[in-house]
């Protein structure tokens, strides 16, 4: 059953890829439209939408079959939650496309969905039993609602990104262009991370190190990528592996730091190659494709996404969270880092809404805020779970 489930997810992934291509052609395909004298572009958008919908059905298939296999709702570890977030993002896209019919939204959202699903697959995918604290119906209710809220809010990010790429002046080399390119670089690094992880996984690369851990004891650490950063007082056990360049202090998880270094390094390389090939900022290279996009519409899409997502997130991430915390942990609020970051997300989008409604922050400032909001969501998903220890770090 688990195998069927994984296959369904794979199918969904490739359907999203096809849909992305459809949307991309429909957005950039003005030239072809001219030749045929017909509106091919728009129809391809519709095709993309249908393919996305079918992909979503497969995605739901993954979810249901995994649920059946595990006997509990599959949102209980990093792989399952992150995959569900990708699914929620697709669902949110299906709704917002239904309202605004903007093909460009598909062209940006679906790659993000694919990135999220690919990123999820980096984590262990085995079906795990539930610890006592998670055995509750509120697992279904709280986690799915929160993920859905985050998915809808992420559409705001996609639309904000489109707005920025569409409107920034890439001939200037100012702060705005720098930061947009920084976002591009981050996305490139994420792709690099997934790819090198996959490549080294293909060759089953392994380097085992003996090191001295925090408790001052001898321990072993297994690297799945060549070690540039060695663990504290580490010596390689495996033969024929790369000699590390630097030794890390004891409090740092050196294998994770090593992976991050590899990703960022490969990211720099890929980004540099792209820049050389394109001879302009990545955003500037994409911009001409978007010249027919109406920035006002994109701005409204991003606002609409946040107006829809904010109540959903609040309900799932704060209210349902508090109800469950009262039942499982005896108190509705305990300043656990994950709780605090959910509150921060809430406060951030509350500030966004007030700035937009009362201070007239439309268009560009609003788009930047959408980007920052997404960074907070990702921070809460990745950093708070994996780095800051707390009650939520069971994954």
């Amino acid at each position: 059953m688990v195998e069927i489930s994984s296959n369904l997810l794979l199918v969904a992934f490739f359907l999203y890829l096809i849909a992305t291509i459809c949307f991309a052609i429909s957005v950039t395909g003005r030239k072809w439209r001219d030749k045929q004298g017909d509106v091919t572009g728009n129809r391809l958008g519709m095709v993309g939408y249908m393919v996305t919908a079918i992909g979503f059905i497969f995605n739901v298939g993954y979810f249901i079959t995994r649920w059946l296999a595990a006997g509990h709702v599959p949102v209980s570890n990093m792989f399952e939650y992150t995959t569900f977030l990708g699914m929620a993002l697709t669902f949110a896209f299906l709704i917002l496309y239904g309202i605004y019919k903007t093909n460009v939204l598909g062209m940006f959202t679906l790659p993000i969905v694919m990135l999220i699903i690919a990123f999820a697959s980096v984590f262990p995918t085995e079906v795990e039993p539930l610890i006592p604290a998670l055995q509750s119906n509120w697992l279904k209710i709280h986690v799915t609602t929160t993920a859905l809220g985050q998915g809808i809010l992420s559409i705001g990010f996609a639309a904000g990104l489109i707005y920025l790429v569409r409107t920034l002046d890439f001939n200037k080399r100012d702060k705005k262009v720098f930061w947009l390119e920084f976002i591009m670089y981050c996305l490139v690094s994420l792709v690099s991370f997934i790819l090198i992880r996959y490549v080294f996984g293909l060759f089953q690369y392994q380097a085992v190190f003996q090191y001295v851990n925090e408790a001052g004891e001898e321990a072993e650490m297994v690297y799945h990528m060549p070690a540039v950063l060695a663990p504290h007082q580490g010596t390689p056990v495996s033969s024929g592996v790369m000699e590390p360049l630097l030794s890390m202090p004891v409090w740092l998880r050196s294998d994770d730091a090593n992976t991050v270094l590899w990703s960022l390094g490969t990211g720099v390389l890929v980004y540099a190659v792209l820049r050389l090939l394109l001879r302009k900022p990545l955003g500037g290279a994409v911009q001409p494709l978007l010249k027919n996009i109406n920035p006002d519409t994109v701005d409204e899409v991003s606002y609409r996404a946040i107006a829809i997502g904010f109540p959903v997130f609040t309900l799932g991430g704060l209210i349902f969270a508090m109800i469950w915390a009262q039942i499982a942990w005896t108190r509705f609020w305990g300043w656990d880092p994950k709780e605090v970051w959910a509150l921060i997300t809430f406060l951030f989008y509350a500030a966004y809404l007030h700035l937009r409604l009362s201070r007239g922050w439309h268009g560009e400032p609003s788009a930047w805020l959408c980007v920052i909001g997404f960074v907070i969501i990702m921070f809460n998903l990745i950093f708070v779970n994996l780095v800051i220890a707390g009650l939520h770090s069971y994954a």
Partner: protein
Amino acid sequence: MEKIKCECGHFNPYGTHLCESCGKPLDDKDKNASMVDMRYEGVARRSQTYNKTIIDKIWNFFSSVKVGIGIIVLTLIASSVGTIFPQEMYIPSNVNPAEHYENEYGIAGQIYYTLGFHNLYGSWWYMALIAGLGISLIIASLDRVVPLYRALKMQKVSRNEGFLKRQRMFGIHEPDAPEQTVEDTKWFLSKKRYKVREENGSLLAEKNRFARWGPYINHVGLIIFLTGCVLRFFPGMYVDELVWVREGETEAIPGTDREYYIENEEFFVELYDENDETFAPALQRAGGPQVQTYQTNAVLYQSEGTGTVGTEPELTEVKSDEIQVNHPLRFDNFALYQMDYKLNELNVMSLSMNDRASGEKIGTIDIDLFDPQGEYDLGNGYRVVIDSYFPNFEFNEDGEPSTVSDIPDNPAFIFQMFSPEHPEEGEYSFVGIQRNEDVFGENDYEMSFEGVETKDVTALTVRKDLTLPFLIAGGSIFMIGLIQGSYWSHRRIWLRRFGGEIWTAGHTNKHWASLKKDFVALSRETGLEVPEDKQAKKAMKEKEPNGRDDSNG
């Protein structure tokens, strides 16, 4: 302050920008603008009108959305700082916080501790931020909602030309049959679920006005929620206790004034089966057993009478329940939660007294480690007296035997063994876990370990929280208001006839594209052209869109 009379005859409060009734711009700024500022319908807000007394100044400060956003952002930043290192409540309770932060996190940890960030969310300034947020919520809402309510209630159907002309969406049309067009519009917009009012051939079609109240309702919810949080600090509202209960024992529940008692019939920990088909790979990777259940089979009793300390209470069973994580036992306003446990706590220790030379066993004694007897008579002139008992044995700083606590984690005894050979003084023997020493010289008899009985102990959190109803009410009202304000938008379409001309104007508090869609549909039905969007036109000219949804109300 005197009222301002508009040419339509309506008296407006001092400070009004747009007449509450007909919408005519009353001050020069609006008269000269191409678009009127529709935020809060141009009503007279106290904060925008008065600024003399100290109360005015405080009112104006807290009614400002800019200040509100400032407080939100400060709270946000402060909250994030509190997650850099664990808060004091999450560090081990047996360490000195000052040392802990320095040892674990170095100089940064030391600074963190010195600045009080280890207890950030309980600090006076964090509380002050939340209080400021509450005050801002109240004042900013009152400043807007009251006049806004008046204006929306007062609004006339046929609006002033100056008002219509200065709407973001405005158009003039000359249809062939104006009367018919108005009729068609009325019919069509009613079909689109607009509430259409008619007056002298003018129309006002309005939809979802209730969405305007959403923000104020959710602010009320938040205020109730924050009030609930403050109530926590009043005595009697909140109980947070822990009770340890051994299997088979019954304890008074702290916080209930000895009215309720809890019995632990059984406590157990259940592990997942390592050979489970589905979970085996994950369990293997985790490399250790995984807990499936922590459970206390508990019985709740209520005591009859006054429950004076010292007298044995008369208990009646109220109910029995299986307490698990996620399944507390509830009674009255209390709940008992599975919080902690201790397996195999020593309970009864059995020792035998033996004759060293012959190896003959004289007799066995069972010592209740929580309530040892002073003397155990073995008959025939043999008896054992407990000279000293150390439930949790250690040598103290002076090298003397002593105990760390009353919990028998490491029990040790000094026995005095009486026998026919030593009837007066007895012989002294020191017995502990993996220790058995004669105290004064060679003894004829010895105490030897026979066995132990252990019990499991459960720890239950006792919780009463009378603030919960407030939080539930506040949270619900907040959600209702939030959804009301987010999922609907207030749209209005005005139609006014001047002879053969029809003027149309439209306004919405958000999502202009949706309003435009309605106009497009209307145009298809009635032939009325879609009014021009001044904002879009301006944006096209400036290439720099700078729109503004008019208000959060």
